[in-house]
């Protein structure tokens, strides 16, 4: 009997227990992948951030606007290749936050210059640019509500009171993985030139997004922008897009930490379940293992036998878990979509899957270590005498 066949036979000694263990392990692996994906979700904005992009906001806080007159002054700085501005609109479809999605007023002519990860057919783009109330929406969002070019969408303003109607002029797609295709952006003039807008709120930008020619010089450009407005009534804070996004994550860091802790607890639970099963198996087989050693098997080989068994259990659980995880993540996404908006595509990363398989393997080997050592520590004669 070869070594592999010996492992196989040992595994199948108690098929019911094997099945239950693998299932329990798979459940744990699925939950692990799920939680890791939720953590990735918090970092999604930072991951998608471009190195050559800076975000300029009001130094006081992100909800304070900046004057539109900064546009030309920032654009004239050396090192700045493109600039656009956008304003969080925060409109909702109904009276409440239900069916949430992000919506911004953007500068239609420069938006895609600064965000080249979005693209749309050129006909739709020119229609979007020429309509003062044109809207450009992500294809994932369009699929969610069944919107197509030519549709009219009315949002209730939260920050800007009243009903606002926009014409869907184009549907954008991402040019690279990680681009967020759940946004609703519309032309700034629709907001700024509306009679509904109070005089005090005119000609304001929420943030400026700036592209620089050389990412290595972005620190210099950021300092130049902040320096230019330091003594104005509206001082700015400029940081890289990544730092800007990480600022949001930092504010939720307690939640992220809690999820991290729970995902580690899962590994512990898998460890306990697999360890328990192996310990039981080894205890019941004390005599068999002693017999093997009496026949001349080295202790190392016996340890290897138990560890191989646990590795097979761990890998089988991981395989099953990886298969089940996508549907779990999608189920969760559907559950929270109405309140928090859709999840971007491909949030589940290959990295997470690989990590989960490695973690399952490591945990199962760890779980097998104690029973394996116990199996070889018992003197052979005593083991042979033992009745399970």
């Amino acid at each position, binding site marked *: 009997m070869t070594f592999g066949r010996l492992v196989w036979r040992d595994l199948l000694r108690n098929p019911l*227990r094997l099945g239950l263990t693998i299932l329990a392990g798979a459940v744990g692996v699925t939950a692990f992948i799920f939680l890791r994906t939720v953590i990735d979700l918090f970092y999604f904005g930072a991951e998608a951030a471009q190195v050559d992009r800076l975000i300029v906001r009001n130094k006081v*806080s992100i909800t304070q606007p900046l004057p539109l007159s900064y546009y030309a002054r920032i654009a004239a700085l050396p090192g700045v290749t493109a600039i656009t501005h956008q304003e969080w609109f925060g409109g909702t479809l109904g009276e409440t936050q239900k069916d949430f999605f992000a919506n911004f007023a953007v500068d239609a002519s420069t938006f895609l210059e600064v965000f080249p990860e979005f693209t749309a057919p050129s006909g739709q783009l020119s229609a979007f640019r020429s309509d003062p109330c044109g809207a450009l929406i992500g294809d994932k969002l369009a699929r969610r509500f069944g919107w197509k070019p030519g549709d009219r969408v009315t949002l209730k303003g939260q920050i800007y009171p009243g009903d606002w109607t926009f014409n869907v002029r184009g549907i954008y797609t991402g040019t690279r993985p990680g681009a967020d295709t759940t946004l609703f952006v519309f032309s700034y003039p629709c907001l700024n030139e509306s009679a509904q807008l109070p005089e005090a709120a005119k000609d304001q930008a929420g943030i400026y997004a700036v592209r620089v020619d050389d990412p290595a010089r972005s620190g210099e450009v950021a300092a130049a922008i902040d320096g230019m407005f330091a003594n104005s009534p509206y001082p700015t804070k400029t940081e890289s897009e990544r730092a800007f996004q990480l*600022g949001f994550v930092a504010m*939720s860091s307690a939640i992220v930490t809690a999820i991290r802790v729970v995902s580690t*607890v899962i590994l512990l639970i898998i460890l*306990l379940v697999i360890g328990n099963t192996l310990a039981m198996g080894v205890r019941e087989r004390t005599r068999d293992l002693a017999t093997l050693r009496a026949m001349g098997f080295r202790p190392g080989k016996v340890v290897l036998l138990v560890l191989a068994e646990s590795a097979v259990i761990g890998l089988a659980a991981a395989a099953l878990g990886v298969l089940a995880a996508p549907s779990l993540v999608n189920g969760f996404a559907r559950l929270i979509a109405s309140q928090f908006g859709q999840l971007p595509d491909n949030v589940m990363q290959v990295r997470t899957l690989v990590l989960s398989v490695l973690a399952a393997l490591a945990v199962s080997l760890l779980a097998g270590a104690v029973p394996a050592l116990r199996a070889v520590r018992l003197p052979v004669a005593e083991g042979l005498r033992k009745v399970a």
Partner: protein
Amino acid sequence: MVPLFYNARSLWARRLSTGLTVLGLGLVVFVFSAVLMLANGIESALAAGGDPANAVILRKGATGELVSAVERDAVRVLATDPAVASGPDGAPLVAGELVVLVALPRDGGQAMNTTARGVGPQSFAARPEVRLVSGRAPRPGTNEVALGSALVGTSPEATLGGELRFAQQRWPVVGVFEARAGAFESELWGDASRLGSAFGRPEYSSALVRLRSAEDMDAFVRRVGEDARFTLEAKPEPRYWADQASGLATFIRVLGLFVSFVFSVGAVLGAMITMYAQVATRIAELGMLRAVGFRRRSVLASVVVESAMLGAAGGVLGALGALATRWIHIRTLNFQTFAEVSFGFTPTPGIVVGALLFGTLMGLVGGLLPALRAARLSILDALRA
């Protein structure tokens, strides 16, 4: 009925396996109850910021104070309503308030969004739950601010006697207040007109109205909604804060219960493995029990009870572990108000009972199939094994 003593001894006889299973079940119960306590903590932290006799006035349709605006004239009109209570000096308890976000620096270069509330002279009097624990109230017309107790120490200058800098101005901290662990404790309070001019906001964000009694609330809400002089709506203060908490609490609850459910499947399987092994190694014993006259259903009940004991032990362990978290305090961003709130794990008797039941239930479900196998054994086969 097989005596419980027998089950307890059997579990004890296989200590390692029993211990591992109880630990696994305990971890699941821990996560389950910790999550419920956390969601409860957020809700009580935010909802505690409300008095049933207080109404929050917002622009119609506004979901929060941050996106709302209330004209100064409207506040004067509201003060004439007959249901409004009067303070000790006879003035109506009505306060126009301004809510803005301030990014206070935090150690390590990060910033935290903090709610700055511009208050009026009546704001403290209208909220009896807010009381100063040190220092004094900010004087009207100055840049003085008072800090909620949860903010103290979170930013380098955020202490009594410190001086905050934002919006190109200096804001000396002259007092610290508590609000029964409510949302106000995560806010800083200053003069509404000074904050308004510093932020270029001529209007109020909201108005706070204290009524003579909570029974006048329904009529008052209706009067404000129907008043043609303005487009405002009134909400009882507790409901306003509960709405502000709903998003974050739902997120944590959905995520946590989702995870607990997945975990519990794993733990039930773990309990099942243990109980199958218990049955398998005790076939001769179980056969003996049947031979001395115990019925099949007694054996079935015995195994199920044993498994439930495992589960209950896990439940106790998990609930105790979760109760130990109540000394931990957490700050996080509330997506709805876009400001950070501070809250803790808040246990309720319901959650503790729920945790114990959850643990026992997992044990019960895990023991069912092994118990059936034990009950199905024929006496002869079992004795021969």
